[in-house]
């Protein structure tokens, strides 16, 4: 799975820490999400997409 979290974060001038605080997780969780080493729960994916003002499928790109 690829994510556009980093790109969208930059667009809204958010640090990993800011995003983590807004969705109620640790900074490491955002880090691992960005690296594609962690599949988020539906709730977390929804929360992140909401903060980044995008649709879930625009933030998380599932490949095959």
């Amino acid at each position, binding site marked *: 799975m690829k994510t556009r979290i980093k790109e969208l974060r930059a667009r809204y001038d958010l640090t990993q820490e800011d995003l983590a605080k807004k969705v109620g*997780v640790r900074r490491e*969780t955002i880090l691992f999400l960005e690296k594609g080493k*962690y599949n988020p729960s539906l709730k977390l994916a929804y929360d992140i997409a909401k903060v980044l003002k995008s649709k879930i499928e625009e933030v998380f790109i599932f490949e095959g």
Partner: protein
Amino acid sequence: MKFRTDKEILTEIVMCLAWIFVTGWGWLQTRNPETLFLVGMGAFVLVESLYRATKPKPPGVIDDEWMQRLREKAGYYVFVTIILALLFLVVISMVFNINNQIKMNLFDAASFGFFGLFSLYLLFAYYYRKKGIY
């Protein structure tokens, strides 16, 4: 001076008081200097806890889904490792020619552990299948 009254610090203080009470009671019974040392240790931790109670609560680590999944995954591998180790011991006790007494003890302990843990696993799996996983 303002004291914190959250559950965490209160539990710590109550545990310290209980420790001092129990070790103090032990010391009154025995008049043993080592026991007095244990009372002193409790008193030291109590003073330290009271001091920390005057400071604001430090921000805790968020127990988010990453941490939960980490625990689940690590716990699962620990479980599988223990199950396999027990199975390995059962096989060893059945196959190899070792002292009969040791063989029986090993077989009993390992098979009891194996079936006990596996039954618990099935029980929890059934429980969470009914309850759902959030």
